[in-house]
C-alpha cells in the first residue's frame, strides 16, 4: 500500500528472502515422507509464520510485493522451476505440483466472479469438469491440436455457463448461489446417464501432444531423465502466468473498479451509469473460461475423467481456497491452494478427514482472519506508481 509522503520504491530484498524461504520449505515438505517429520515441519511452518508476523517481518514482505510485483513475479516463476527441477524424476510430486498450479488457475477464475463481481459460483468443479470432458472427447474423436483443445475447453465452459446467466442475473446473493448448486447437481447427473461420455465410469483422456512431442514419455536431455509430468508442469506454468496477468490487469483497470462498485452497492453503481448486467456477465464468462481451460489441461494430466471427480464437494474445495487465501488477492490464492491441496496429500493420516480439515480451516479463518490469510490491499493501478 502506498504510504503518503513515501516516495522511494520498497526494496526487493524482503520479497526475495520470503520467496527463497518458502521455496526451501516447500521442497523440504514435498521431499519428506515420514509422517512425524511432516507433522513437525507443518508445525514449524505455522510457528515460523506466526513468529514472523509477531516480529513485524511480514510487513516489509508485503510492501515489497505490492511495489515490485513484476520483478517478484519473475522470481516466483524461477522458484517454481527450481522446485520442479528438484523433483524432476518424481512423478507423484510433479503431479501434485501441477494439480496445485491448475487449481490456482481455476480459483483465479472464481476470484473474478466472487472476489470482484460478488457472484458466488458453487459449480466451479462442474466448469472444471466441462473443460476436462472437452479434452476427453476432442482428443479421442478428433485431431484438433491440443493447445486449441484447451481453448475450446475454456470457451465451452463459458458457453455452457451462459445458460446460468439469466437465473444468476435475476437473483441475488444466496439465491444466485443456489442456482449454481443446482447446476452442479444437474451436470453430474447428466454425465452419469450419458453413455457417449462414458456414464459413471468416465472416459480415458489421451495425453497431450504438442507439435509431435508426446507428453506420455519421459524427457531425456543428455543423461538426465525428466518425468513426463515435467512437460505438463511447463504448460501449466505458462497457463498460470497468463491467467495471473489477466486477473491482475482486470483488477487494475476501470473494469476491476466496475466489478468492485457493483459488488459493494448495486444501487449506487447504477446511479453512476454502470450496466450491472453487462459487467456481471463479463465477470462470469471470463471466470468460467479460465476454470474451463484449467480443467481441460487437468483432464489430460490425469488421463482420465469421471463424473465423481467434479462434484459439489470439489466446488466447495475451490471456494474454501478462495476464502482461505484472501478474497481478491491472487497471491493469497497461490498460498491457500498449496495448503489445501498439498497438506492432505502429504499427511496420509488425515486423508480420510480432509473435509474436516477444510471446514476447520475455513471456520478458523472466518473467525480470526475474516479477510483471509493475505487480505486484498487497496487497488493500486500500477505497482510502485507514485503521483
Amino acid at each position, binding site marked *: 500500500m502506498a504510504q503518503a509522503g513515501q516516495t522511494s520504491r520498497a526494496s526487493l530484498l524482503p520479497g526475495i528472502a520470503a520467496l527463497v524461504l518458502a521455496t526451501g520449505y516447500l521442497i523440504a515438505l514435498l521431499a519428506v515422507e515420514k509422517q512425524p517429520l511432516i507433522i513437525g515441519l507443518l508445525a514449524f511452518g505455522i510457528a515460523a509464520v506466526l513468529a514472523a508476523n509477531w516480529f513485524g517481518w511480514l510487513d516489509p514482505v508485503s510492501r515489497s510485493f505490492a511495489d515490485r510485483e513484476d520483478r517478484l513475479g519473475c522470481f516466483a516463476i524461477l522458484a517454481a522451476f527450481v522446485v520442479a527441477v528438484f523433483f524432476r524424476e518424481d512423478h507423484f510430486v510433479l503431479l501434485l505440483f501441477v494439480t496445485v498450479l491448475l487449481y490456482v488457475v481455476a480459483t483465479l477464475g472464481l476470484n473474478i466472479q466472487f472476489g470482484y463481481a460478488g457472484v458466488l459460483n458453487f459449480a466451479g468443479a462442474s466448469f472444471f469438469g466441462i473443460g476436462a470432458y472437452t479434452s476427453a472427447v476432442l482428443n479421442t474423436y478428433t485431431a484438433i491440436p491440443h493447445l486449441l483443445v484447451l481453448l475450446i475447453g475454456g470457451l465451452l465452459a463459458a458457453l455452457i455457463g451462459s445458460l446460468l446467466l439469466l437465473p444468476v442475473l435475476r437473483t441475488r446473493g444466496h439465491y444466485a448461489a443456489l442456482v449454481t448448486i443446482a447446476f452442479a447437481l444437474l451436470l453430474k447427473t447428466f454425465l452419469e446417464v450419458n453413455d457417449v461420455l462414458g456414464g459413471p465410469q468416465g472416459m480415458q483422456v489421451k495425453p497431450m501432444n504438442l507439435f509431435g512431442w508426446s507428453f506420455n514419455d519421459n524427457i531425456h536431455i543428455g543423461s538426465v531423465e525428466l518425468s513426463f509430468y515435467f512437460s505438463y508442469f511447463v504448460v501449466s506454468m505458462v497457463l498460470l502466468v497468463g491467467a495471473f496477468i489477466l486477473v491482475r490487469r482486470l483488477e487494475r483497470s476501470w473494469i476491476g473498479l466496475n466489478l468492485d462498485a457493483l459488488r459493494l452497492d448495486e444501487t449506487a453503481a447504477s446511479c453512476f451509469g454502470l450496466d450491472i448486467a453487462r459487467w456481471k456477465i463479463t465477470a462470469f464468462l471470463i471466470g468460467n473460461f479460465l476454470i474451463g481451460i484449467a480443467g481441460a489441461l487437468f483432464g489430460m494430466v490425469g488421463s482420465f475423467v469421471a463424473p465423481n471427480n467434479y462434484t459439489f464437494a470439489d466446488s466447495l474445495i475451490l471456494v474454501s481456497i478462495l476464502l482461505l487465501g484472501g478474497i481478491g488477492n491472487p497471491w493469497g490464492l497461490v498460498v491457500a491452494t498449496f495448503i489445501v491441496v498439498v497438506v492432505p496429500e502429504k499427511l496420509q493420516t488425515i486423508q480420510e478427514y480432509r473435509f474436516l480439515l477444510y471446514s476447520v480451516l475455513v471456520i478458523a479463518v472466518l473467525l480470526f482472519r475474516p479477510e483471509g490469510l493475505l487480505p486484498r490491499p487497496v*487497488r493500486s493501478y500500477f505497482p510502485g506508481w507514485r503521483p
Partner: protein
Amino acid sequence: MTALLQARGLTRKFGGVVALDRLDLDVVAGEILGLIGPNGSGKTTFFNVVTGIYGAHEGHISFDGADITKASSRAVYHAGISRTFQRSRLSLPLSIFDNIMIGNHKRLNQGLWFNLMRRGDFKREFEANYRAARALVEVFEPQLAERLFEPVAGLPMIDRRRIEICRALISQPKLLLLDEPSAGMTHDETKELMDDILQVREFNKGLTIIIVEHEMGVIERITDRCAVLNFGRKIAEGPYRQVAADRQVQEAYLGVA
C-alpha cells in the same frame, strides 16, 4: 427562463402512502434550489424518482428537453444528473480515488481490449483522471488530496461527504442533487462543507443544484429559491425569506394551529 428540470403532476405511492402527490416543480438552469419540508414529506422520494430508482405512478419529468420519466438510473446519469445519498453510499473498502472514479464512469474508456491490453494508453487515461480527481478534491480539502489511495473506511464523516460530492461532480453533470449533505455533521463542519460547495460552483459555472436540507441556516445562505413539500405536495415556493414567512409552511414545520 427555461427550466432545466421540469416535473409535472408527479405522483408516487407506497401502498396507501402517497409520497409524491401531483407535484409540479421547475428548476431553472444555473440556480440552487432548496427542497425543504418535514420528515417524510417526499423530498428523498423526489430524488429517487428523478434518478430512476423508483418509477413514477403518474405525471412526467423532463430534463434538458428530453423526457426522463421512465429512464433508468443509468440513463439519468448519462443525461447529466448526479446525486449524493442521504445515508452515505461510498464503497468503504475502496480508496478515495476509486470512489471518485465510480462517479466518472461515463468519461472512462470501458472497452475490454483497452483496459486489458493497451496498458500504455490506459496509464495515460489513469494519470489524467488522477490529476482531475486531485484538483477537485483540493478544492474541498487539500490534505485529503494527498491521501487519494487510502481506503475511505478510515475517514471521518465530513471527509466522506466531501468525497461523495466529488464523486457526483467529477463527471461535470448539469444537475447535482444533494440529499442532506449536512446529516451527521456538526454545525461548523456543515458551514465548511457549504463554503466548499459554493467554491466548486465558481469552477463549474453552469451547475444547477437541488439541495435537500434541514439546516435552515444552510438553506438561507446558499439557495436562490426554495420549494416546500408537505405530504408529497408543494405548499410554497419562492426565496427563502418569503417561504419562511409563509403561514402554511410554519404550520407544517412547527404544527402551529
